[in-house]
């Protein structure tokens, strides 16, 4: 029994130390974004003595963060909607179509889990130019939808395969078409798996920096990640503003994470269920 106590003690010590290492930077980020610069340098760890919103005001007004948020939300929502719709349709076919073609396409789709789409960037730049989408946030949508296909087909196909087959048979005997089976039976049942796919892609899309960096220059089309990188460069020496910018980018995801930690963890590790 003594051994068990020692073990428990060790567990708490290790995990507490790591938790401090994780939480401390996030804490100082948030707390210092409300302090004037001088106070950050004098007392970086305490609560603010004089509370200021200057950094946020600056980031919001001069930095056009309001715009960046709206752009990012539009891109994320549209891309997620399309990923779920197109991906679930494909997954239904991949799960139910007994054919070597379906098997091949399944492997073709999930191969994308192992191959980063970034390596095709150069050709994507040309494609986006040809479609006349450069410098708009619409350029991001099709790329993100394509990027979401491997995980969507991987998770959703596995989920549909697990569903009891009698359900589909019964509906078909009643004369339902495949489309009706898909919309009335499969879609409602798939909700938990759809949530996993949605969260996985939401985090990837919201935090993506690469494609906005490559496709977008114009201010009115910038996303949060791109805005953060440009503003941080500008404010590098003004820590109140720099920290406010970082907080603005980090807080929405952190709040969602605190509310939905279990789903987030499940979502982000979804690509690794079987490899």
């Amino acid at each position, binding site marked *: 029994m003594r051994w068990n106590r020692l073990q*428990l003690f060790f567990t708490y010590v290790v995990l507490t130390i790591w938790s401090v290492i994780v939480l401390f930077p996030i804490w100082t980020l948030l707390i210092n974004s409300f302090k004037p610069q001088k106070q950050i340098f004098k007392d970086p760890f305490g609560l603010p003595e004089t509370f200021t919103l200057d950094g946020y005001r600056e980031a919001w007004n001069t930095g056009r963060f309001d715009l960046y948020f709206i752009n990012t939300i539009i891109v994320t929502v549209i891309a997620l909607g399309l990923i779920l719709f197109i991906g679930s349709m494909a997954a239904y076919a991949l799960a139910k179509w007994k054919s070597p073609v379906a098997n091949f396409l399944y492997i073709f789709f999930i191969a994308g889990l192992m191959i980063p789409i970034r390596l095709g960037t150069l050709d994507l730049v040309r494609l986006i130019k040809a479609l006349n989408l450069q410098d708009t946030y619409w350029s991001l949508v099709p790329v993100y939808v394509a990027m979401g296909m491997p995980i969507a087909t991987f998770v959703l196909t596995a989920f549909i395969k697990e569903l009891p087959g009698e359900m589909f048979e019964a509906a078909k005997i009643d004369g339902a078409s495949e489309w009706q089976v898909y919309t009335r039976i499969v879609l409602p049942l798939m909700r938990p798996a759809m949530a996993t796919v949605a969260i996985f892609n939401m985090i990837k899309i919201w935090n993506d920096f690469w494609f906005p960096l490559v496709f977008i220059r114009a201010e009115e089309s910038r996303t949060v990640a791109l805005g953060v990188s440009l503003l941080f460069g500008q404010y590098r020496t003004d820590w109140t503003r720099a920290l406010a910018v970082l907080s603005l980018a980090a807080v929405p995801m952190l709040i969602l994470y605190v509310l939905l930690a279990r789903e987030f963890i499940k979502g982000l590790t979804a690509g690794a269920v079987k490899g």
Partner: protein
Amino acid sequence: MSQTILTKSGSAGFLNPKKRLTLTWVLFLLPALFIYLTFMAGPLFDSLRLSLYTGQGYTPTEFVGFQNYINLFTNPLWREKFINAFTNTCIFFSIHMLVQNTLGLLFANLLSTDFKGRNFFRTVIFAPATLSVLVVGFLWTLILNPQWGAVNKILIAMDLKQLALPWLGRESLALPVISLTSVWQWVGMPTVMFLAGLMGISDELLEAARIDGASEWDIFWRIKFPLLKPVIGVVAILTFVDNFNAFDIIYAMAGAKGEPGYSTDLLATLFYRTGIAGEHPVGIPDMGMGAAIATMTFAILMTGVLSWLYLSRKQETE
């Protein structure tokens, strides 16, 4: 819209039922296949083709065969850059493999027992993974700032002034420090995966070993570790793919040039500078060469992934 198409195909009387069903499945797959081919698979393969061309700007038109590759490996200027970026990427990956996955295994092992606050710790460990890499990178540049950053302030306060180093300014330090920042962010991933693997090991088995007097250390190495091998394989390959493709963290903490003195330049930053941004003093992107670097990265990734698939298959059949 799709509905009308599908009902139409459904009522296409001239097709026999089997063909009709095939057509239905094709229509279900078509949108996903179209977008995946056009915006992912297509560009990926076309980038391979692009590496055989040269020319400035966005339309390299002059076919040069393998000249870009020959340059990449024989022109001392390019070779040095490429070897440097490749070596740095290997170091970056190895630090993740060793530190991140060892810590993940340790945390998972601790979290797999039942105690108060377990969920709290799991939530905290995973939290940074939901943040943008860019934000994490910028945040840590401030924390590691030699003059005003928290790390050096704490070290000085602890009377360890000689340890208060310019973490991101010294060539020998920058890459390991940036790698560890990235470990800080991503350690939750292997933790959760290993935890899922450990939860799958039957309690009776562990209990039996304990009754036989095995120490926790023995239990870990003799029972848990061998049973975790498949999970370790998955974690290893994901670490490999993610880190051979890392860009954001370097861009945030060391700039696109991998400062100081290219000591943190990775394959992805080299690819970005060569093919997309254009490098000083020319300032014009060399897409053909960029594509050659991307193709080399692709080849490295494929070699890794395929040998992993081969090895894990072999282990399965054994």
